[in-house]
């Protein structure tokens, strides 16, 4: 259906470092993004994820290391020669131009004949469903529509890579889910290598083929959403993606044996939903260990009840699925917790 198509390329980042004055923002990033992949930089604010994206587009201070798009080293190139399309967080639509002029801008800069520009602008606007709004000013559009114009303006130049800098953060919750699906659909249709920056793990999990988790200018882990969740490489990733029980030091079981005692420099991690909360004395499965504790706090979240259970000196989060009419434990109740040892991860830092 669309004529806007380009050959998918890879993006390779080799030993990239970057500083704002004395502040080191990126510290030796190495990464390969496959052609056609939907790749996400996920991290808290200040982690360097936006800086890394902007470096790929050619903005910000000159970095050390190399950035390759396909086989071309673009590290030294100015932004306007890179042909990577970027959608800005605030959309950055030019208020003095109509929607059509906004979308046409990149093509005009590329000295495309006027007739072709018109056709391609129409094509791009049709793709985002805004052809009827072509003669409006950005200020006359809603946030979601502005977002679509920004997207059309970027893909119309047939960029080799599409960069999305927290594009959904200015939209309300419902629209965000809708836009997220639309962007993914568009990306798959165009087979465009896409890099997405977000601090929202749900956004990252629902869209990405692979995710790089960043913290303090360092890539903590790269993997598919499920890999990152199930096999976090370190404490930061475990905590940042979902909720985790992170235990330093030994944990005493119901029968008095001490767990994890040998793992002095390690952290033990297991997810709240991997525990089975039961009345005392509790039943253990074949691979289970049984813990004993007291309910310190309870939150009803609809589909589940989240308990804080005190076990020895530790406070554990336990998620219990809630079904209609199911009896809940109360604050102060003594409970047993079954935990399958297969679900226990030992993290090295």
């Amino acid at each position, binding site marked *: 259906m669309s004529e806007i198509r380009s050959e998918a390329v890879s993006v390779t980042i080799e030993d990239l470092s970057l500083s*704002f004055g004395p502040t080191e923002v990126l510290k030796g990033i190495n990464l390969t993004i496959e052609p056609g992949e939907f790749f996400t930089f996920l991290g808290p604010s200040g982690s360097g994820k936006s800086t890394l994206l902007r470096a790929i587009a*050619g903005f910000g201070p000159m970095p050390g290391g190399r950035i390759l798009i396909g086989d071309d080293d673009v590290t030294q190139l*100015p932004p*306007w020669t890179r042909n990577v399309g970027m959608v800005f*967080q605030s*959309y950055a639509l030019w*208020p003095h131009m109509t929607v059509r002029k906004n979308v046409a*801008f*990149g093509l005009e800069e590329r000295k495309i004949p006027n007739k072709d520009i018109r056709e391609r602008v129409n094509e791009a606007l049709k793709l985002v469903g805004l052809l009827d709004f072509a003669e409006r000013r950005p200020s006359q559009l809603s946030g979601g529509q502005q977002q679509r114009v920004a997207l059309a303006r970027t893909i119309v130049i047939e960029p080799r890579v599409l960069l999305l800098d927290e594009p959904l953060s200015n939209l309300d919750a419902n629209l965000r889910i809708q836009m997220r699906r639309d962007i993914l659909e568009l990306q798959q249709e165009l087979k465009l290598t896409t890099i997405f920056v977000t601090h929202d793990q749900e956004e990252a999990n629902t869209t990405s083929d692979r995710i790089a988790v960043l913290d303090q200018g360092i890539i903590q882990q790269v993997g598919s959403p499920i890999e990152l969740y199930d096999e976090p490489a370190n404490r930061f990733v475990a905590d940042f993606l979902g909720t985790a029980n992170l235990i330093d030091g030994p944990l005493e079981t119901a029968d008095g044996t001490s767990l994890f005692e040998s793992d002095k420099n390690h952290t033990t991690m297991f997810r709240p939903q991997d525990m089975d909360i039961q009345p005392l004395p509790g039943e253990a499965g074949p691979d289970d260990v049984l813990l004993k504790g007291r309910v310190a706090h309870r939150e009803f979240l609809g589909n589940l009840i989240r308990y804080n259970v005190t076990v020895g000196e530790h406070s554990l989060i336990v998620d219990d699925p809630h079904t209609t009419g199911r009896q809940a434990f109360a604050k102060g109740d003594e409970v047993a917790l079954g935990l399958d040892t297969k679900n226990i991860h030992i993290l090295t830092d």
Partner: protein
Amino acid sequence: MNSFSRSNWGVSTLAIFISLFLLVFLVVPVGKVIFVAFQDPQTGALTLINFIDFFNTSLFQESFLNSIYVSSMSVLLASIIAIPLSYFTTRFNFGGAVLIQTLGIVPLIMPPFVGAVAMLLLFGENGSVNLLLDEWFGFTIPFMEGLNGVILVESIHYFPFILINLSAALLNIDRAMEESAQNLGASGTRLFRRIVFPLAMPGYVAGASLVFLKVFDDLGTPLLLNINNMLAPQAYLRITSIGISDPMGYVISVILVTFSLFSLWVSFLALKGKDYSTVQKGGGGLMKRDLRTWEKIGCYAVIILILLMVLSPHVGLAMLSFGTVWSYSVLPDAFTLAHYENMFRMAGQYISNTLLYAGLAATIDVILGTAIAYVVWRTGIRGRKWLDFIAMGAVAVPGVVIGIGYLRTFVEYNVPIVDKPLASWWVIIVIALAIRRLPYALRACTAALQQVSVMLEEAAENLGATKSRTVRRVVVPLMTGGILAGFVTSFATASVELSATIMLVNVESDAPLAYGIYEFMQSAAGRGPGAALGIVAVLIVGLATYISHRVIERTEMQRTGTGAVIAEQTPVAIGTTTGAAPL
């Protein structure tokens, strides 16, 4: 902002060119003036002898004290006018707000020296008001006697600076500030003393120090009122009567510059770190209350009294321009159009010169202003802040000082084709105007550029536009409103500038309008045509001010509603774009 420093050639060349311009036409002349003030006139050695001479001469002592006295009293009188007005608008619900806003603009559209003669005829010893007072009550008030005249004319002209800054400060106080104080138990005078007053103080001090500076530097008003024992007139008279080698003019220049810097420093201190724009979304300003009937009457009485005062130079000037003979009488004997005929016959050259000079100067100003703003805010060139600093420094240089500096510095440089010294070529007037008005244009351009989000530029570069293409297609179009406002402000204020031009006009045919008014007003017969020319000046400035307000209004309307794409607006504390402010 932090873009790669590749292909910076164009920008560097631009920055060097601007620096050279500022160096040659601002730094060197002012430096020369300061240097000469510390130089022994005979030997050329560095000395303080000139300053000692200055302070040992009774005329100069008197002038010095008079200048300080007049400036301080003008600040006082201007405060007495401005404080109630700003209090009324921000504190009470009543319809007079529009009147007060008008009051804030009307005085600024007429340079003070233009109205000075008209004020003599209205308020002088034998002026309309005193004639009436004498007839009805048997006494007179010396409104215009000696320094009183200067104080009255200056404070009527400059009180809007206090009004604008103080009102802005009061409007910026969030209602929640007041409410939380009340919630914690403060009310009445304690509330005012502890919350409202400290929050509004910086705005007041900024406005007041600006008034002090303007009055201290003003040359035209004392000259027109024939008051010579003040600093600026003394500097002018020494240089024009004794010659440019007389050191006293330079000593006075140094004192003028020092006091200007001091006023600016006070204003800077007042505003520094006190960005009190505490207004949250939704409710802004102090709590307003309705007025009781008698309060309302009181308010209106005060406002109308001030309005009459403020309009008196305009009314007086109009009457003078249409009156036949106006002397020892309440009103002119009869009315005529003859002065306008005379004026257009004799003074057409003045008007066309003014339009040419002010137009050129304003064009230079917005080009320089845009370029400096871009270099300072969008490039990483070393020392870029200095460019801004030096250009803004022109604010602290009184017109007399620029005039003396140009005369002294450029008298030796012959312009090749016209074969004249640069100091007496008409182009030097244009440059003087451009330098003097550059701060206004630069502020407007900077504000305009700061409203263009860097992301809008990055988006253009991302889509394939080079730096210069981005400037042309995105930055400049988005700055248009601000640039235009800067042009109009520069144009309006340049067209009535007197203090620098009066020293640089070499032949009458090169003279602009302000000089023409001054010349006419020297003789009783010239007053009529002079007033008519004054009316032309008021029309030019008034029209320009109106246009500038419309432009600002329109661009602001365009901006609101564009929402996320525009960076938040920075409040401009000193009302540079609010109207004309001739020195």
